[in-house]
């Protein structure tokens, strides 16, 4: 996350400090000093809220320069509004000040947890972000003018102005140093925000119990104060869980597209180097190395089928496998079946993605069908020379059915004699039993299998299984298309070799009525989930 240096300018209060000479303060009155001390705390916290909002905005929305400058602009402008509004506050100023501090503590304190939580669930996140920034700004903008009015009779005007602003700017310096160096690394954004909130409430508490003129409303405000402090403290205690929950939702890079379809949540992020697609928070591909995955998925099967005419792709709505297939000019027809129209439409329309998949899904040879793959292969009656099965990992019981022996038997009905199917089969390194369970299940369904694996930096070691019936396969059966960056006959030969830490292990067969694979998968990947 890039940070943009922030220059802080605190608008002058627009109140009308009296120029009249102040009465000399009683020698033992420490209370003005206390109030000046609170200027320091208030200033530090106020800047931290601003930094939190800016950081969060660039963290969640990307484009840090733009986010930081607009957040700061909005915040300062809101402070101006606050300063201006302060003129309307009359009566017991101390009471106003205490109430204000409690409110700043709550609004500022809960700002980070709230923004994190809401990000994934609201459609107009920006509106909420700027409303919250505006509200905090207004409240913080009220603080200093109000304090100056409280202190106006205790100091001479020139002293007052010089002292208040000295503390204000020192607080700002402190904030800009501890925020990036101590608070964020040690506490994280959520705890930092809650801690500052608590400090504001503590300032309110000191004012409430140190000034005799607060007696009449000590009771009522004391209750609110205690409740606010408690709420902040409890949330602080649960910050760990909150963080874990929200972190899963947030992404490192700039989010350039999000869509929640009836089937999944699509999130596309971008940085200088790569585009990444996340489905339900799981990385689907990175444009930096997806070619390794898709070349490994497609070419070992296709090079063995120089006469292939018809291909079926199940899953793979990103069109990247189809892009590889289109490198074989002899192909006449490619059927792509993907559940989610939101996904295939994205890869047929978005300019960056069209560049990535080379407009594969718009090619006239390609027919895109949005359907449930299982239903579809049971209803379809045609045969394919090659079938590419690129489903999500078997992480739940309904996807587990797409890896069952029954599914593979149905798949076999769609495979032309001598043809090959290839199945993406999770990581043989991380999920060794899962990988071999897919292989054994394919064998139980009557296929001959050829397992292999490739290294894809974004994913690690990834596994695939070729499945054929009376089919012949050689790593150099036919010519590979020109221009491949990963797959060569030598790579294919290497991919077939399994070192001891990934070699075959005995497993159950994945049946609809035992869902053995989902269980292996949960156990294998369990230690990797955070």
């Amino acid at each position, binding site marked *: 996350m890039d940070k943009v240096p922030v220059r802080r300018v605190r608008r002058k209060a627009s109140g009308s400090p009296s120029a009249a000479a102040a009465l000399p303060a009683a020698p033992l009155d420490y209370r003005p000093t206390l109030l000046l001390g609170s200027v320091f705390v208030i200033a530090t916290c106020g800047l931290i809220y601003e930094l939190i909002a800016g950081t969060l905005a660039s963290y969640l929305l990307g484009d840090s320069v733009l986010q930081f400058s607009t957040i700061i602009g909005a915040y300062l402008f809101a402070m101006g509004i606050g300063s201006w509004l302060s003129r309307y506050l009359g009566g017991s100023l101390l009471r106003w000040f205490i109430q204000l501090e409690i409110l700043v503590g709550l609004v500022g304190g809960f700002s980070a947890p709230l923004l994190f939580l809401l990000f994934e669930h609201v459609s107009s996140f920006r509106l909420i972000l700027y409303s919250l920034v505006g509200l905090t700004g207004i409240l913080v903008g009220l603080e200093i003018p109000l304090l100056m009015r409280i202190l106006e009779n205790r100091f001479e005007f020139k002293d007052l102005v010089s002292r208040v602003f000295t503390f204000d700017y020192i607080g700002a310096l402190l904030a800009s140093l501890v925020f990036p160096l101590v608070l964020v690394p040690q506490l994280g954004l959520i705890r930092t925000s809650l801690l500052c909130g608590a400090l504001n409430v503590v300032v309110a508490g000191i004012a409430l119990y140190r000034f005799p003129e607060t007696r009449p409303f000590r009771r009522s405000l004391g209750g609110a104060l205690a409740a606010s402090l408690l709420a902040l403290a409890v949330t602080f205690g649960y910050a760990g869980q909150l963080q874990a929950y929200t972190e899963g939702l947030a992404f490192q890079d700039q989010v350039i597209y999000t869509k929640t379809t*009836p089937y999944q949540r699509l999130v596309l992020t971008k940085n200088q180097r790569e585009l990444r697609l996340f489905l339900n928070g799981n990385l689907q591909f990175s444009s930096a190395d997806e070619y390794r995955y898709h070349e490994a998925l497609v070419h070992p099967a296709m090079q063995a089928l120089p006469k292939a005419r018809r291909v079926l792709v199940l899953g793979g709505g990103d069109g990247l496998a189809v892009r590889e297939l289109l490198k074989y000019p002899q192909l006449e027809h490619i059927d792509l079946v993907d*559940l989610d129209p939101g996904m295939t439409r994205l890869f047929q329309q978005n300019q960056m993605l069209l560049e990535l998949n080379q407009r594969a899904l718009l090619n006239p040879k390609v027919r895109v069908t949005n359907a449930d793959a*299982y*239903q579809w292969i049971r209803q379809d009656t045609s045969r394919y020379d090659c079938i590419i099965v690129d489903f999500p990992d078997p992480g739940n019981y*309904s996807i587990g*059915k797409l890896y069952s022996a029954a599914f593979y038997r149905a798949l076999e009905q769609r495979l032309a004699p001598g043809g090959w199917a290839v199945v993406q089969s999770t990581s043989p390194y991380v999920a060794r039993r899962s990988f071999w369970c897919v292989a054994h299940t394919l064998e139980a369904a009557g296929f001959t299998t050829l397992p292999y694996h490739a290294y894809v930096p974004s994913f690690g070691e990834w596994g695939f299984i070729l499945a054929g019936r009376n089919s012949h396969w050689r790593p150099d059966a036919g010519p590979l298309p020109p221009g491949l960056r990963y797959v060569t006959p030598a790579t294919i030969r290497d991919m077939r070799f399994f070192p001891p830490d990934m070699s075959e292990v005995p497993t159950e067969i994945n*049946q*609809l*009525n035992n869902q053995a694979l989902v269980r292996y998968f949960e156990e294998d990947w369990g230690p990797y989930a955070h």
Partner: protein
Amino acid sequence: MGSAGLLLAPLAGLHSCAPGSRRSHIRGSMHGANHATGHLLRDPARLPDPTRTEAVEVLIVGGGVAGLTARRELERQGLQPGQVLLVELDEQPGGNSRAGHNGVSAYPWGAHYLPVPDPRNHELLAFLRDAGVITGTDAASDLPIYNEYYLCHDLEERLFIKGHWQNGLVPELGVPPAEKEQIARFFALIEELRQTVGTDGRDAFVIPLEASSQDEQFRRLDEQPFAAWLDEQGFTSPHLRWYFDYSCRDDYGATAAQVSAWAGLHYFAARKGRAHNANGADVLTWPAGNGFLVEQLRRQAQSSIRPDTVAFALHQTPTGLAVDCYDVATKQTTRVTARQVLMATPLFITERLLAGLPAAAHRPLPVHRVPWVVVNLTVEGLPQGPGQPLSWDNVLYGTDSVGYVDAGHQSLSQTDAGARVVTWYRPLSDASPEAARRQAYQTSYDEWVRQALAELETAHHGLTAQVLRADVWVWGHGMVAPTPGFLWGGARAAAARPWQNQLFFAHTDLSGISIFEEGFAQGQRAAREVQAARRPTPA
């Protein structure tokens, strides 16, 4: 969900829940309680005299599992489709195994599964083969291979106990070690009983129950209540006792105190299913439940089925029997003469229909029949609690119901999160059957829905708001419960015996245990008896 609109469209004639309640948006149908057609039988004298006559060789009265099985078997034994007629009171056959459907899914109204059968049950296996439920035989083991789409998919059962869904229905979560030890002892005993063979060489417990050993040491168990036997054996664990009550209510509609020890043990020890790709603990199920099997039975024969037709009186004629059948649609009565009549109706109905025949034809067998209420809930989603995800059979510990099944469980689609139908079952076993029946008939649609939701909300907070529709069926006469003495007391066997080569009987009431296999066995037996009566006896 686009289907929601479709579902809610035909609101006319539907019941609705109490306005102002949290259920006020819920609508649906209610069946059974005021079943006009069934009530015609109360007062047959008010039905019109026959205006037409018709002659068939064999008339089957009742299109439940037993009647449909007999129809199929008679054709298999050589009767021509034109020689057999089946009359069914309802608008479609199936009886307790019938199914319904809406825009979201098919769903069961009663029976919803068949355990993988004992491979020695050859007749049942032949039917399942014809139905495509068995797809082949494994050459090495000679065991049947079942269609995987029909074997219940994994995540079969779960139990909501102590605020958590555990795997399986035998309580485990928070069960003290001493109770766990009893549970283990019980299942060890069952394993032994499953293997036990009587002095006559027959299995102690087997399905269909007629094939069980006649050995006194086992049959004696029929004389005492299951609960008393459990006390004697020291099975006192509260969790285990809950499980027995649940099991007995699930299969018989009655508690462990109401059924006999033989029946209670039969439930556990008689399932001896074996298959190449499944075992005795596995079950076969379909979105429509056993409505699927009913449909297969229907398709495997050609002879006519006349729905909406109530048989209401039998008479003797010089050549056989005549049965007066009232057509609900045309409001006319036809007198059907037949050489053989097969009564595939519940015994309390059979008794009424036979009123005009000599005393020897009567079947005065008192049957303990427990009413059931079934609520089919079509929901937009099912908010889940902690623990095992939604499974096929979902039971809530310590509740009045026996839980619910998910009609969408066998679905192969990935769109699982959406709308689905769940079928909630509750046997009314707390009062005497008569009192429970009277009470049930007086209970309103809203009250049944309220009770079902009140219970389900404990495990699925917020479910009420997600209900698109609720359909209720009150099975006033539900099914037979094997009370002590009923199974092996002798009266049951006598009641099943044909009368004068003219009148035959097939119904699960005559088994004492109401499950598909018994209905099927009843139909097979009765069809064989009809055939034997029709064949000229060798002089």
